[in-house]
């Protein structure tokens, strides 16, 4: 199926267009309406939570964090196509997938608020890795997870996310090659949001697509409209089938656009034009899904407004729980380096407490 969408021939998977119109494609798994609605709710919740975090940051209540606005369809569509116990390996912009997987919003907030305890995600419950800051490094974890599950014959897959800029790191190369040689059930998703901080996609590499890089490893690779949850879902569903059938990894480039700043510390006006942003606004994954659901009368404007309020109240609550929770104790900042705190560190801890 992937051959029909060879990115080198300029082909790209697009199912739902900007107007919220769906053109199903033979053999490509299609989300049904209830799934689309379910997805929409998570996208909306993600959007509201993300915007609330920005306003918290502006109020000085939240440290620097990376907004996800405009990219919600990708992690979400991907996880909807997978099982709860497939491994979810994120970069740092995958809030929608996080929420879909059932991980509390407070854990996302709390991590960026600056407390490690919120990154304590029991793996048997969530099969999710915490945010990975060193660019592209997490793709190797993905390959390793996929190897282990193949070793254990569990049928579980591992999906790893990376940005467009991340494709330039050596780890991207090594991760894809390891997974391919192992025929491991890994799925790699590039969230091509057109920028690596200020560096435009065009300066990162001269190939017309990022997807085609997969062929260098013998990996079937496809470019999809990353602002269309149905395209993402369809591609990941097919990738998962390959993976579960022991056919090895797949690479998916999901083309999208970061509507907000890189992080709250970033000033995008330095490197991109207002016109460009305007061009992308109508392509917003949330809006087009909304259009579809409205046109199908699966949703009303009133309902949307009500949901927004509900989600905002929820986001506020979640953040409040973070803001009012205890900071780590000094012991907590020592105790998790090793199963047992070494004598040397114990003494440092003691000295530290006495030093004041």
């Amino acid at each position, binding site marked *: 199926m992937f051959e029909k969408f060879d990115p080198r021939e300029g082909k790209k998977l697009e199912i739902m267009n900007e107007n919220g119109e769906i053109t199903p494609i033979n053999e490509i798994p299609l989300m049904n309406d209830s799934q689309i609605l379910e997805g929409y709710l998570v996208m909306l919740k993600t959007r509201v939570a993300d915007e609330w975090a920005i306003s918290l940051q502006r109020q000085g209540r939240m440290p620097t964090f990376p907004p996800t606005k405009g990219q919600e369809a990708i992690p979400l569509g991907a996880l909807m196509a997978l099982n709860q116990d497939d491994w979810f390996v994120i970069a740092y912009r995958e809030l929608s997938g996080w929420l879909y997987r059932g991980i509390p919003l407070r854990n996302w907030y709390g991590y960026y608020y600056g407390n490690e305890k919120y990154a304590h995600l029991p793996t048997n419950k969530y099969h999710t890795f915490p945010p990975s800051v060193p660019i592209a490094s997490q793709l190797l974890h993905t390959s390793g997870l996929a190897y282990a599950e193949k070793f254990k014959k569990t049928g579980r897959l591992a999906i790893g996310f990376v940005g467009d800029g991340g494709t330039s790191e050596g780890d991207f190369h090594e991760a894809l090659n390891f997974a391919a040689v192992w025929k491991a059930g890994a799925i790699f998703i590039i969230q091509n949001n057109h920028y690596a901080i200020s560096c435009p996609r065009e300066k990162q590499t001269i190939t017309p697509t990022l997807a085609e890089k997969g062929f260098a490893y013998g990996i079937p690779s496809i470019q999809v409209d990353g602002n269309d949850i149905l395209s993402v879902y369809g591609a990941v569903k097919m990738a998962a089938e390959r993976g579960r059938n022991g056919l090895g990894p797949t690479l998916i480039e999901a083309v999208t656009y970061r509507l907000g700043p890189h992080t709250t510390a970033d000033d995008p006006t330095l490197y991109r034009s207002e016109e460009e942003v305007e061009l992308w606004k109508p392509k917003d994954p949330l809006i087009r899904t909304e259009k579809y659901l409205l046109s199908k009368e699966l949703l009303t404007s009133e309902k949307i407004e009500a949901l927004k309020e509900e989600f905002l109240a929820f986001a506020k609550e979640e953040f409040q729980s973070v803001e009012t929770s205890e900071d780590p104790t000094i012991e907590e*900042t020592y105790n998790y380096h090793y199963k047992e705190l070494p004598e040397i560190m114990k003494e440092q801890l003691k000295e530290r407490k006495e030093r004041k």
Partner: protein
Amino acid sequence: MRALTLLEAVNDAYKTEMRLDPFIVTFGEDVGVEGGVFRATTGIQKEFGVERCFDSILAESGIAGTAIGMAAAGLKPVIEMQFSGFAWPAFNQIVSHIARFRNRTRGAITMPIVIRMPYGGGIRALEHHSESYEAIWGHIPGLKVVIPSTPYDAKGLLISAIRDPDPIIFMEPKRVYRSIKQEVPEGAYTIPIGKAKVISEGDSLTMVSYGAQMKEATAAVGELKKLGVSVELIDLRTIYPYDKETIINSVKKTGRFMVVHEAHQTFGVGAELITKVVEEAFLYLEAAPVRLTGPDTIFPLPRGERYFMISTDEIVKNAKNLAFYSI
């Protein structure tokens, strides 16, 4: 003279030298159009063109590794690692090649490369954005490691680094980037690499610190004076090759020695300096030397970062104990 921040001083050093030497090029992630995430390279692409100042591809090994070829072909690369915590993918190129080419080729190929990197904590940053790993860089034969603590020093030391014929890890204390302004002369001036600076003379004890930690150290010296403790405060400035002479001479005078650094303790800079003092001034010591350092923990996320940092009060208390200790 104008008062500049440390960041502005770095920018000024760049421009001053790039006007003088057409072979200086600078690149790294976001250093071109944007001028770097901290704006250290603001205006450079505009003034010197895209060949001399540009965004690199997002690949640190690539940044360091291509700088090697450039240096061998006669350019003078000044590269930026966006944060010191992201220099590790370049570690192989730096350790295995940049540090070694001169010796490997007995001088035929040299590596006049400056590797700038913001380092250190205290700014409520994300993971990997707060570390202080100068001891690792200092432990690599063939590298020099320089850390300025003020805008004036930043400019003078960076110019020296750019003119130095050998590779230099130039670590910039990001906590100081915008926190102070200082008069910085226009035009070129240099500060010798390998020389420490005596910030205050004193005879009760010798205190060595560097980088962002100089702020608390300096404040502590003021407090200690009130308590009758006269501190000889030394800004180390160069981590390797460090200025043994200034330290030893001071300890021979004061008989008491203390190192204060933000980096964690074990196998850190403090251990080396104390050992050197013990080796060379053992009989002068009136008390066991003291190191006040970060703990052997990973730098905590913002809500825990206070447990890592060293306050003026802690320095005062420990220095007082050291000064008044008697065997």
